[in-house]
């Protein structure tokens, strides 16, 4: 009993927020992770929205190109994509910088992470949003067109609000994937939660303490976002009959 208490006290000291403890490092890593996840999710949503519109209403070439984009991204491991996009991104930026007469540019980890994960998220978001837009009863969009509403206004006022309830479950999943995919950036050396944890663990050799603590942090993020997305879904469905009754 005393020993167990002592063991826990040691872990608590290791995790404490002040200097000898590593708690602050973990929290900093978590903040980095969340920042990248937010950015990537947002960028994925933008790509996904345009991608979905392109796939539904675009010309044949655009549609084929988007099909290639979504297929390739979904068939190749994220880790490989991260490496490819990371090198391509830094090379491109350096080429552009050289052409404009600047020297080599150092790219911040957060920006690179958002760029890389955003492109990956975009492929998944394209599919989610395409399905959601298709699930909107066509009569609603036709009605908007019949009023002479411009395309962009139709999208903002009719399509997006009407598809929200269909898209939220898929988007919630995507957000969870985004938070978990930030861990992959540890392999490329960004100081997000998983890498901070590993550094803390290997310098104190208290592997279980730190990895379990990081797992707890990730789980907390997951559970909280689950609750938030349940709220959003409820809000998106306001005024709709329950889906079970509504579906034909």
């Amino acid at each position, binding site marked *: 009993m005393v020993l167990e208490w002592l063991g826990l006290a040691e872990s608590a000291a290791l995790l404490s927020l002040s200097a000898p403890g590593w708690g602050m490092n973990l929290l900093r890593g978590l903040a980095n992770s969340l920042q990248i996840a937010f950015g990537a999710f947002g960028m994925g949503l933008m790509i996904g929205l345009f991608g979905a519109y392109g796939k539904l209403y675009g010309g044949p*070439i655009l549609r*084929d190109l988007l099909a290639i984009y979504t297929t390739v991204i979904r068939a190749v*491991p994220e880790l*490989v994509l991260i490496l490819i996009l990371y090198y391509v991104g830094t090379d491109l930026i350096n080429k552009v910088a050289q052409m404009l007469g600047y020297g080599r540019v150092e790219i911040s980890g957060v920006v690179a992470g958002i760029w890389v994960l955003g492109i990956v998220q975009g492929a998944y978001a394209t599919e989610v949003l395409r399905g959601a837009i298709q699930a909107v009863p066509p009569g609603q969009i036709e009605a908007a067109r019949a009023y002479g509403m411009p395309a962009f206004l139709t999208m903002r006022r009719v399509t997006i609000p009407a598809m929200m309830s269909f898209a939220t479950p898929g988007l919630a999943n995507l957000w969870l994937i985004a938070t978990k995919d930030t861990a992959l950036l540890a392999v490329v050396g960004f100081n997000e939660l*998983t890498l901070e944890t*590993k550094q803390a663990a290997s310098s104190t050799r208290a592997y279980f303490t730190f990895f379990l603590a990081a797992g707890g942090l990730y*789980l907390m993020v997951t559970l909280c976002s689950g609750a938030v997305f349940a709220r959003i879904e409820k809000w998106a469905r306001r005024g709709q009959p329950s889906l079970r009754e509504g579906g034909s």
Partner: protein
Amino acid sequence: MSGLKSLMQPHRILLMALFGAFVLWCALSLRWDWIPKYAPLALEGLWTTIWILVVTTVLGFLLAIPLGLAQAIGPWYLSAPARLFCTVIRGTPLLLQIWLLYYGLGSLFPQFPWIRSSELWPYLRQAWPYAVLALTLSYAGYEGEVMRGAFSGVAKGQLEAAKSFGMPRFTMFRRIWLPQAIRNVLPTLGGETILQLKATPLVATITVVEIYAVSSRVRSDTFIVYEPLLLLAAAYMVIAGLIALAFKRFENQVPERR
């Protein structure tokens, strides 16, 4: 539809020609002289990737059946731990799980003399048992959730019919419930298997030499960046395509009577 298709041909041909040109450009102007030297290692890595994928999906699926069953019909003392397991596995990154098992257990085991002297020790000192364990648990966690839905999705009438025949419970499970549940989720399982394939490169971070690790080695040995990565991406796409084809074949074997 066929008229539309023939209309769409020219631009498709153009795209294909562009793709062919790209491949040709890759073949001619990029460096491929490293291939002969690393080909044996790459084949070994490919084999490692494939066996890890097969072993972990099979074991994980076997583990997912009781997990799904416990969540679907189990009493609370079985369903609550199963649900907790699935939540934890699905709520934390796989990389973290792999590192927890490898570094955590790997630093714990040597402290016990009886483990060090046991027969298993030579295996426990290598990395692959931890890789297999982590990937199996992860697949089981995701599949447990899928199988929960699958088990509760089987039509009640089927089970009642089996019961009214006086079929023993286990036979009923083996002959009626499980096959129908698996049939219903075959497309999902195909997608999850491709996801599992995409998770395998993570084990390279704990020194298992699979195909991703081979490409990293080429990169660090020769400083050639894009060529091994492109080849690697192509290899994964081929494997993913093969998995998709295999599952399509499974799905076609399922008699459809709806």
